[in-house]
C-alpha cells in the first residue's frame, strides 16, 4: 500500500509537529522549574521533546497512514480510539526508554518511577481531547456533507427533464381534462413544497416519506399512464418512525428511470416497510428491465451512492443497503437502519 500525503495535509502535519515539540519543551521547563528536580533541565527537555516527537509520529502520522483511506476517519471508530490511546502510551514509553541510555541513570530514575501515573493522566487527557475534537469536527463535517447531499437531492428532484415534462403534461391536460390537470398540479405542488422543506429538516416521519413518494408516483402515473403501477405498503404502526427526508426517493426514481422507463410495457414498483425490535427494513422492488446487479454496483450511479452516503452519515455502520435481482422482482433494493422514535431527540 502506497501512502500519499496531500500537500495541504503535509503542511498541517508539520505545523502539528512543531506545536507538539514546543509543548514538550514547555512542559520540560515547567517541570524543571517548579519541582525539586530543577537541576536536571537538560535531561528533562530531551525527554519531553522525545516523548512529544513520538507522540506526533504515532498520533498524527500513524493515524493518517492507518485510517485516512478508510471510512472510519469520521466519526472516530472504536478501533481508532484504542489505537490513539495506545499510541500515546507507546510514545511515553519509547521516549523514556530511548532517551534513557543517553542520560545519567540517576537523572531520570525519579522520572521513570512516575511512569504509570503519567500514562494514566495522559490517557485521560487525550481521551477528553479526542472526544471534544470529535464532537466538534464530526458535527461540522457531518453538517457540510448533509448540506451537500441535500443540495444534490434538490438538484435531482428539480431535474429539468422531470420538470418540463410535467409542465408539458399540465399544458396538455388544461384543455382536454381540467380535473386531471388540477390533480396533477396539486401533486406537483405538494411534491415541490416537500422538496424545499425536506432540505431543511434532518429527519421526518416514515408516514411523510411515503406520502411524498405517493405524490411523486401519482405524478409519474399521469405521465406514464398504464405503464406505471405501484404499491406503497407502510404498516400503520411504523408511521411515526423517523427517516432522513427523501432517503427513498432516489431508489424509486432509479426504479422508474432504469427499470420501467426503458421497458415498453412498463411494470410495477412496490415499496414496503417492515420492522423488528431493533431496526426498520425497507424494500424497493420493481418489475422493470432488471439490470444486472453486478453492473449496477459497478456503475455506482449517483442515486445509490447518495443513499449509501446518507445512511452512513446518519446511522454509521448500522445503516445498510443491499441490491439483488433474485425472486419475483427484477431489481430489488433493501435498506435497513436502526429504529428512531419521534420522541427521541436526534440532532
Amino acid at each position, binding site marked *: 500500500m502506497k501512502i500519499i500525503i496531500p500537500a495541504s495535509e503535509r503542511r498541517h502535519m508539520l505545523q502539528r509537529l512543531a506545536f507538539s515539540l514546543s509543548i514538550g519543551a514547555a512542559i520540560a521547563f515547567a517541570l524543571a522549574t517548579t519541582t525539586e528536580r530543577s537541576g536536571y533541565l537538560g535531561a528533562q527537555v530531551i525527554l519531553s521533546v522525545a516523548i512529544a516527537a513520538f507522540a506526533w509520529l504515532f498520533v498524527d502520522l500513524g493515524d493518517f497512514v492507518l485510517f485516512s483511506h478508510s471510512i472510519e476517519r469520521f466519526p472516530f471508530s472504536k478501533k481508532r480510539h484504542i489505537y490513539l490511546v495506545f499510541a500515546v502510551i507507546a510514545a511515553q514509553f519509547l521516549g523514556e526508554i530511548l532517551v534513557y541510555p543517553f542520560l545519567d541513570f540517576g537523572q531520570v530514575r525519579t522520572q521513570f518511577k512516575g511512569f504509570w501515573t503519567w500514562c494514566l493522566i495522559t490517557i485521560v487527557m487525550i481521551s477528553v481531547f479526542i472526544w471534544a475534537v470529535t464532537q466538534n469536527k464530526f458535527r461540522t463535517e457531518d453538517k457540510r456533507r448533509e448540506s451537500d447531499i441535500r443540495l444534490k437531492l434538490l438538484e435531482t428532484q428539480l431535474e429539468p427533464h422531470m420538470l*418540463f415534462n410535467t409542465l408539458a403534461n399540465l399544458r396538455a391536460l388544461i384543455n382536454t381534462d381540467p380535473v386531471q390537470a388540477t390533480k396533477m398540479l396539486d401533486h406537483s405542488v405538494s411534491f415541490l413544497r416537500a422538496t424545499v422543506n425536506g432540505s431543511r429538516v434532518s429527519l421526518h416521519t416514515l408516514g411523510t416519506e411515503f406520502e411524498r413518494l405517493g405524490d411523486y408516483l401519482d405524478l409519474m402515473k399521469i405521465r406514464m399512464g398504464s405503464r406505471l403501477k405501484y404499491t406503497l405498503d407502510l404498516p400503520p404502526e411504523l408511521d411515526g418512525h423517523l427517516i432522513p427526508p427523501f432517503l427513498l426517493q432516489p431508489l424509486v426514481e432509479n426504479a422508474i428511470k432504469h427499470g420501467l422507463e426503458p421497458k415498453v410495457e412498463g411494470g410495477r414498483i412496490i415499496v414496503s416497510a417492515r420492522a423488528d425490535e431493533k431496526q426498520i427494513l425497507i424494500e424497493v422492488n420493481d418489475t422493470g428491465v432488471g439490470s444486472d446487479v453486478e453492473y449496477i454496483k459497478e456503475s455506482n450511479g449517483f442515486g445509490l451512492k447518495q443513499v449509501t452516503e446518507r445512511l452512513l452519515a446518519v446511522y454509521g455502520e448500522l445503516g445498510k443497503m443491499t441490491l439483488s435481482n433474485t425472486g419475483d422482482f427484477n431489481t430489488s433494493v433493501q435498506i435497513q437502519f436502526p429504529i428512531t422514535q419521534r420522541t427521541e431527540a436526534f440532532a
Partner: protein
Amino acid sequence: MSAVLSQLYRRPTAIIAEDEQHLAEALRLELAKVWPELYVMSIVNDGISAVKQALLLKPDVLFFDIRMPGMSGLEAAAELAETWKGNAFPSLVFVTAYDQYALQAFDAQAVDYLLKPVSSDRLQKTVVKLHLAGLSKHNTEEDNSRNLENTLTKLGKLLSTTTDQMGTALRLKVIKVNLPLLGNSIKLIPIEDVLYFTATDKYVQVVAKTDEGYKEFLIRTPLKDLLPQLDPAVFWKIHRSTVVRASAIDIVQRDHLGKLSLTLRGRMGSLAISRLYTHLFKTR
C-alpha cells in the same frame, strides 16, 4: 386505406412517436389546429414501433420524442434511415423536454427541434419550416438517394456528438472481465490492448491482445454505456453493435450492393460498416 387516400389527394402525412400519452394527444390536437391538412397516420409510444410504423406507412413527417423506451428517438431515426428504401425520406422533427444535447446540433441536422411544452406559435413556425424544406414528392430517384445519404451522414454525426458527452477525465483505462471459471477472479485488460467491441444479446464481446495472441472476453456493460467512456478519436463506432480501434483498421471494402465492410490487422474475417457511419471513411 386512408393512407392510400391521403397519397391520392396529396395530403401530407405524419407519425408521432411519444411515450407519454397526454403529450402525444396534445401534439396531435395542436397540429390539427395549425396544420389542418396534415393527416396523422399513427401515434406510437416507443422507438421500436416508431421504426416499424414509419417503414410501413412512409409518412412525410416524423415527430420523434428523444427519450422513449425501447429505442431513443435519435436511435430510431438512425435505424430508420439505415433500412429506408424507395421514396423520399421523411422530414424529421425532434421533440424533447429539455435541451440535453445542445439545440444547435439538432437545428443543423434535423428539420426542426421542439422543446416541450410546445406552444402553438412555436409549432406554427415548425410547419412553415417543413413547407420550406419541401414536402412534395416530385423528387427524382436521384434526389431521393442523395437526400437519404445526406440524412444518414447528419444522423451519424449527431449520434456521435451525443455520445461524446463525458470529458476525458472519465475515460476508461482498463476493462474488467469476470472469469467465473477461474473461481470468480477478475481479469484487467488495459484499454490499449482492446481491438474491438461487439454487442451480442446480453453481453458485449471484447477482443483484446493477450500474451497468447488475440482473445475474446465477455463483459456486462452495455455498449451504449461503454461508448461515452471511450476516446472517440481512438475508437470508432462503425455499426449499431460494433466499436473498433481506428488504428487497427486495415482495409475497407465496398461490395457489389454498395455496402461497406472492413478488416482488421492481424484478424481474419470482416466487420460490417453501417450506412450511418460511412462518413468516417470518405476519402475527401
